[in-house]
């Protein structure tokens, strides 16, 4: 892994990420407004439908939904984009030798940059409307968790799709189910006790809950749970990286 983090590779990662970010935002008049348009639309729709029933018992329901939506959006777009990294850079993969994981990581980073803009705008809203506390210092750790989770899945998915085309369709459906099984617009207690394991095994549920705890409830995160989740994600990340490295050697002839 230390081989990955040399100057040459970091430079390529930076160039790939920034040029893609530039290309993605080019020629758009509304600029960063686009990043908030989708979450805002979703917020409006969800608030309109649920604020009187599901959301009535939830403190600060609008921010509750907004935090869930932008974190879910990052997860869903970064893994969908990361999964197709080799597809998008087919020519490059077939003709140039360089660490392939850089393509996947740069896809995720590219989405992460716009996610940071979303967070920035959200924080500004929060400061003006409800105020924030020193618990904000946990936010970088939450962002790191989001990043590790997306990288882990993107690495596995990108290499798996070069073996089985179906992975793309499967992942779309997993995301569809995931949207409903993650407490984005409802309180996680709504899931019946019998199925409460869903909340426990869904890493995104934990990450979103952490964010809401510090930003809406203004409480400290339980450090024990936080470190446990962190450890689990790191282990999964390392595992996925090892599997990725094993399978990726044949990627040039498979895509």
């Amino acid at each position, binding site marked *: 892994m230390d081989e990955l983090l040399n*100057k*040459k590779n970091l*430079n*390529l990662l*930076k*160039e*790939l990420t920034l*040029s893609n970010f*530039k*290309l993605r935002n*080019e020629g758009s008049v509304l600029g960063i407004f686009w990043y908030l348009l989708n979450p805002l639309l979703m917020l409006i729709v969800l608030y309109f439908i649920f604020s009187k029933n599901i959301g009535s018992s939830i403190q600060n329901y609008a921010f509750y939904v907004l935090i869930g939506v932008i974190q879910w959006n990052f997860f869903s777009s970064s893994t969908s984009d990361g999964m197709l990294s080799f597809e998008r*850079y087919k*020519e*490059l993969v*077939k*003709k*140039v*030798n*360089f660490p392939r994981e850089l393509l996947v990581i740069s896809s995720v980073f590219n989405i992460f940059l716009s996610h940071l803009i979303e967070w920035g705008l959200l924080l500004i809203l929060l400061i003006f409307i409800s105020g924030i506390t020193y618990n904000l210092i946990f936010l970088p750790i939450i962002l790191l968790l989001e990043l590790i989770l997306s990288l882990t899945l993107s690495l596995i998915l990108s290499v798996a*799709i*070069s*073996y*089985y*085309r*179906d992975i793309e369709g499967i992942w779309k459906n997993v995301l569809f189910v995931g949207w409903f099984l993650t407490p984005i617009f409802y309180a996680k207690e709504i899931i019946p006790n019998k199925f409460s394991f869903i909340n426990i095994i869904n890493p995104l549920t934990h990450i979103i809950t952490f964010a809401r705890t510090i930003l809406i409830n203004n409480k400290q995160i339980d450090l024990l749970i936080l470190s446990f989740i962190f450890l689990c994600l790191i282990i999964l990340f390392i595992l996925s990286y090892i599997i990725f490295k094993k399978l990726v*050697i*044949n990627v*040039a*002839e*498979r*895509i």
Partner: protein
Amino acid sequence: MIELENVSKKFNINYARRLSVLQNIVNLLDGGKKRYILALKNINLKINKGENVAIIGPNGSGKSTLLRIISGILVPTFGNIRIDTNITSFLQLGIGFHQNLTAKENVYLYGAILGKTRSYISKRFEEIIDFAELRDFVNVKLKDFSSGMQSRLAFSTAIYTDPETLVLDEVLVVGDLEFRNKCFEAFKKFKNQGKTMIFVSHDFDLIRKFFTRTIYLKNGMIVADGDTDKIIKLYEKDSK
């Protein structure tokens, strides 16, 4: 030094298309029949530092596969490969260029793909642009370039990344006469600097001029390997 020992490359032609899970199961029930192409058979090859080697042969003889194995893009199915040099390969010029970025942005991106940092490219940027003769187009988007201009930019960036070992695959056929002369210029420079070059081409004039050793590949096997003039004569006789 680059050393290949009994290298074979087998392509599973089923893999040419990514299969769905269902098709895989169907194939299994089918008795697991798989069709292979042996693109390279038992290649033994040693290229020393500073040698200039051309590879010739008819289409489909495995030239490109061999280059991709030497470049580390493909792994051999059988055999070993030992490499103790830094290889920069140009199997196609301008890979990774984006039409919506300017010439300048593309030079930095392409440089990064070839393993060079931003500060390294910055130092050579003026030379790159001068060699490509695109001084007036630095901040113009690539989509407004002719294909000749694009190849010039790619080639110029590539040669100024100062590669230790150069692997080229017929990338130079695209240019006009002027561009060809530029390539000659670059080849001469690399030769004088004692760099290792491995070159696939059908351009025998160019090969005779710069490459002392030639390898003749046919059906994935090395037919002959040795002095350029002799090997080219053999190939010409063979193709008649």
